[in-house]
């Protein structure tokens, strides 16, 4: 009897992140009829797209037990560079391509120091965090920059009824998910994250893998930056600040471990990002007291993590019992 009960509890807990996400949505749905409209749900997706894209890149890095503090600066650089280029009269597509290159290059710089000099990722990306923002501020003369109409159009266009940011997000998540779960490269990322020394002993191209995750992270940061400014139409000096924390939070909320080797982009990171955004969205929709925002956000995320870790404890227990159920 007790066993059966324990099992059914376990079953429910198995999908805790999803269930909690649903719980949040339903709660807000009760509090405001506006929350459940199609338009609003699509808004949530659009609003989380930038964060989710960046968090996807971050997930790759976290999986190798690394960290990238410089994504916010990369975003900012991306914004500044694109604004500058368009202001100098370059066509939109060229600006976008350049920005993505800049992001990738930024990742390359991180990767270079990490794998050439074996400096720990935290310090390298802390340094590039400062350098990137400083350089962006230099380019922008510490001023807000407005982008031409064209950018906003990209941000608000829909293809086959799917808003552009969501489309980009979909493509990113899908390819990241495929790469991580269905390719050799992806599985080797998990191996390296578990134990780089063992991976090297097994003859895996550890350096190349590390290199590529930072490239991917830089690319995603730039892309996330582009998606964000395409919605905003402007870049301010604080653009992208704290994004690194939110990206890491989204990934970890989705079950990725800071210690490497554990986690996934889909559904993990995606749910993480969307959950964070739904809370923000719901609070505005129900017109909550602005002072309560951080309190509620903090408490709700705490609760989610709590329930998830309780489930995890259960899981460890049942895993030891073998694959019998």
């Amino acid at each position, binding site marked *: 009897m007790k066993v059966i009960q324990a099992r059914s509890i376990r079953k429910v807990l198995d999908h805790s992140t999803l269930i909690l996400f649903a719980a949040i949505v339903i709660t807000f749905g009760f509090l405001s009829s506006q929350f459940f409209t199609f338009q609003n749900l699509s808004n949530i997706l659009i609003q989380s797209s930038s964060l989710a894209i960046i968090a996807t890149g971050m997930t790759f890095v976290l999986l190798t037990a690394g960290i990238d503090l410089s994504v916010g600066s990369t975003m900012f650089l991306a914004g500044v560079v694109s604004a500058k280029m368009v202001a100098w009269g370059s066509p939109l597509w060229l600006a976008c391509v350049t920005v993505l290159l800049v992001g990738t290059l930024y990742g390359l710089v991180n990767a270079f120091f990490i794998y050439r000099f074996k400096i720990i990722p935290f310090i390298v990306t802390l340094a590039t965090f400062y350098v990137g923002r400083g350089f962006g501020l230099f380019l922008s003369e510490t001023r807000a920059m407005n982008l031409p109409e064209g950018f906003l159009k990209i941000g608000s266009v829909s293809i086959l009824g799917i808003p552009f940011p969501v489309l980009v997000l979909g493509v990113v998540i899908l390819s990241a998910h495929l790469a991580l779960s269905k390719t050799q490269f992806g599985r080797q990322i998990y191996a390296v994250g578990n134990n780089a020394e*063992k991976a090297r*002993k097994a003859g895996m191209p550890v350096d190349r893998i590390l290199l590529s995750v930072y490239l991917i992270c830089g690319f995603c940061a730039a892309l996330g930056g582009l998606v964000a400014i395409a919605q905003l139409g402007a870049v301010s000096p604080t653009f992208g600040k704290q994004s690194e924390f939110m990206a890491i939070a989204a990934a970890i909320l989705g079950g990725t471990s800071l210690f490497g080797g554990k986690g996934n982009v889909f559904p993990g990171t995606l749910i993480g990002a969307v959950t964070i955004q739904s809370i923000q969205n719901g609070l505005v929709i129900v017109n909550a007291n602005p002072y309560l925002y951080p309190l509620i956000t903090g408490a709700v995320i705490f609760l989610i993590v709590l329930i998830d870790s309780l489930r995890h404890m259960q899981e460890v227990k049942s895993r030891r019992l073998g694959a019998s159920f």
Partner: protein
Amino acid sequence: MLLELKEIKKSFGQVRVLKGVSFTLEAGKVLGLVGENGAGKSTLMNILGGIHKPSSGEVFLEGKAFAPQGPTVSLNSGIALIHQELNLFPNLTVFENLFVKNFPRKSVAGIKLIDRRAAIFRAKELLEQVGLDIEPDRIVESLSPAQRQLLEIAKALSSSPRIIIFDEPTTALTRHESRRLFSLINDLRSNGIGMIYISHNLEDVISLSDDIAVLRDGEFINGYTKGGGYSLGSIIRDMVGRDMDQFFPDRDNIPRTDHLLEVKNLGMAPIVNGVSFVAKKGEVLGFYGLVGAGRSEVARCIYGLDSFEYGEVLWNGMRVKTLNPAAWISRGVAFLTEDRREEGLLLDQSIEKNVALASLGSFASAFLRRIKRKDINSAAKKKAEATRVKCDSFDGQATSTLSGGNQQKIVLAKWLLTDPKLLILDEPTKGIDVGAKHDIYELVNELVGNGSSVLLISSELEELLGMCDRILVMNRGRISAEFAKDVFNREAILESALHVMEEAIGA
């Protein structure tokens, strides 16, 4: 000549590990490599595997000079190395571990994706070869050490190598799986594959090998060929540099009748199913069983490392409520687990600190719990020496740089230092050389002679027969038989370990 080593030398910093070793390996032959802990066997093999570069000396592969720049090069040249410290990724599944270097792939829209179906199919074949009956998509974290060992062997086979190096492949295996492995080795031999077989189980080495090479302190001491007339005794003499009289030292102590530890109807389905037993004071109680029989799990449940569903544990006749390691240690119970790297050692820490870890409390002042450094360090050093650890320094060297057997000794020393009333040993002589084994048996005898008890879980029946006052046999999570010292019977023990198993499979 498949492989030839010439005057290989290797130093780590100031430490000279290999001092010029030469030998050859022919196709379709098995070379047995033996030597004391820390003699340099693993180091030598790591050189062949491309993990270390030799300081000097040459290697010839099929007559051509061979200087691998990395593990991949070795692997591609057909050398597969089964590491002593398993090189598996516990966060991946079984089949992913098998193919993580080279998955079967299929092209989808120009992108190479893992062909999961082919991988699983191939994985099943490989697993069957080594006699491992598990689902290929099981996560390796959930495997027992024995299962992991077999998986590691399957992994080596997956690259279709010409040379396979086994570095102590049977430490986690029972006879049953070992035999299976030996027949596999014989098959491979007849397919013309050259193998190097390292083990401290000298009988195995003798029965398997065509040639035997003995290392001592990084030097090649002696070589034997099959039919060349040699004995176990001469090999041991070459290894340890002295004669050894009796392998299992005598103990003249008779267990008392009072119960020290009593376990009643302990269970956690499906691994442990209602286990009851008693350990008496001054007794060495043995546990025998096949892989996955649940011996380790019983000990883990008792010690509070894993939780169980029903049953109770009595200590000195009193029911124990708090089952956790700290509480057990304060009662005087120590538990040497079978996984030394994950559960036994702080690999980055020095020998001294590792040995001291479990006894800090008893070497600390009552006020502020300050550690009496001098006392604890000298006590730790003494214990480490008693287990005959071979190392360069007790306080400077990280335990990760010790040889496998020496690491095992450190863990043992750690638990001996707590001066336990009951010592639970799970595969304590795993990877330990004959000489040191002998020393450890003496340490156990000394402990028991002082009135303590020992719970000895082992897959080496010889060891149990030689050491125990009683042997319990486990089978599918149950205790299937009990044997007292005067009625020890090898066949009967094996029978009761195997028998029900087959019945259960048949059912």
